[in-house]
């Protein structure tokens, strides 16, 4: 009895999310909040983590790069999943906007992947004595994740029709998602130099509170930052896709006036 209105409400929300003007305005309204919130969280987290938190008894101060490395590593993987899900929705329901989201996530995800690789490398030098270790599974699969992002973008650019690019690249995004669990479990499946699971593990995080709280703050800050960039890009992407429609032209007229 209850199920029917519930489902129809969900359905309407889904439909609204498929409507470009609605999403354009939603993104426009969300963006400033996300921007401000992420700046605040990043500032607090950075101060706490870099200044207040005590040095690690093993690694001294070099551990502080964790506040960039871990959030960007998480976002590189989370971004991929988001991209794949969006692309999959776009493919199945022929929803152009979902493809737009995937397109916007790809470069962001690639940047965060690169950031995770670079910060990991920098951290590796003092702890493992080397920037890069061929043969370490986590490192390799993270690199392959970067290649997947790049492959997705290259594949898109090789089509001159946007619609076809959307649909074909979506399939690649979906196939590539197998890489994400592999990255996560690589430290358990192979013997690696890389740290085992620290935050997301059975029995709770294995890290002191002094380090954990700023890390969580940074994590939230990075995620909101990601969301902020995504909203901005999504607005641009929607305008590009819808430039021939009446509402975008009206928008341009308003902006000019």
């Amino acid at each position, binding site marked *: 009895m209850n199920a029917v209105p519930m489902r129809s409400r969900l359905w309407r929300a889904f439909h609204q999310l498929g409507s470009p003007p609605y999403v354009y305005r939603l993104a426009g309204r969300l963006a400033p909040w996300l921007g401000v919130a992420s700046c605040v969280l990043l500032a607090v987290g950075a101060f706490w983590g870099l200044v207040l938190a005590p040095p690690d008894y093993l690694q001294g101060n070099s551990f502080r790069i964790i506040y960039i490395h871990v959030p960007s590593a998480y976002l590189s993987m989370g971004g991929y999943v988001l991209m794949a899900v969006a692309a999959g929705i776009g493919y199945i329901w*022929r929803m152009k906007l979902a493809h737009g989201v995937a397109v916007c996530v790809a470069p962001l995800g690639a940047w965060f992947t690169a950031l995770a690789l670079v910060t990991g490398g920098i951290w590796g030098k003092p702890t493992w004595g080397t920037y890069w270790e061929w043969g370490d599974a986590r490192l390799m699969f993270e690199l392959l994740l970067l290649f997947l992002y790049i492959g997705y973008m290259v594949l898109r650019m090789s089509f001159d*029709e*946007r*619609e076809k690019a959307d649909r074909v690249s979506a399939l690649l995004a979906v196939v590539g998602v197998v890489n994400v669990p592999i990255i996560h479990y690589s430290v358990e499946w192979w013997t690696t130099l890389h740290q085992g699971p620290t935050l997301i593990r059975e029995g709770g995080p294995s890290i002191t509170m002094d380090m954990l709280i700023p890390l969580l703050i940074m994590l939230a800050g990075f995620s909101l930052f990601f969301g902020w960039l995504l909203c901005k890009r999504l607005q641009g992407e929607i305008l590009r896709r819808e430039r*021939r429609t009446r509402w975008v032209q009206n928008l341009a007229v308003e902006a000019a006036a």
Partner: protein
Amino acid sequence: MTSLEVRRGGIGLLRDLSFKLSPGQTALVTGANGSGKSSLLRVIAGLAVPAAGRIDWRGSAVHRLPPEDRGEIAYLGHLDGLKQEFTVDENLEFCRSFWKGREPVEPLVAEMRLESYRHRNIRRLSAGQRRRVALVCMRLKPARLWLLDEPLTNLDTRGTEVVIEWLKGHAAEGGIAVVSTHRPKRLETAASIEVAL
């Protein structure tokens, strides 16, 4: 077929086109270069999805047809769909067995004057001979709806006459055909309606 809208590359091509064919009817699709004849045929075949509207074949949308019903539609586009490395016979044999056709091959090959080329690779045929093989291949499908995109391309006078005969025969047996062409005069005698784009 309900009101149909076709787009390619984001540009609207056909709008509010709609027509309905009953058994025994043959439609000629005519129009200038680039008016959307090929696009229309691809949409009817279910190879492309219309931007709006739908095309029904016996009550269900064509691009959702289950595979076993797709056998009722035979499509021949601008490309011949033959394997260059195979001989004429090998190509025809594959068509027949893949589509589980029951029509005998011999008379068709004879009609199209392909007897002396049966063991020759498609690569070594002339343009018109290839088109003839492609047409025979199309005939080997036990289809009720024929979709032919400029079937007369590269055909000589005799080849053209054979195609006209085939269209007449198909209609007489209650089949439906949609044929795009730039030479409607030539096909007039075989057509029952003309769709001008």
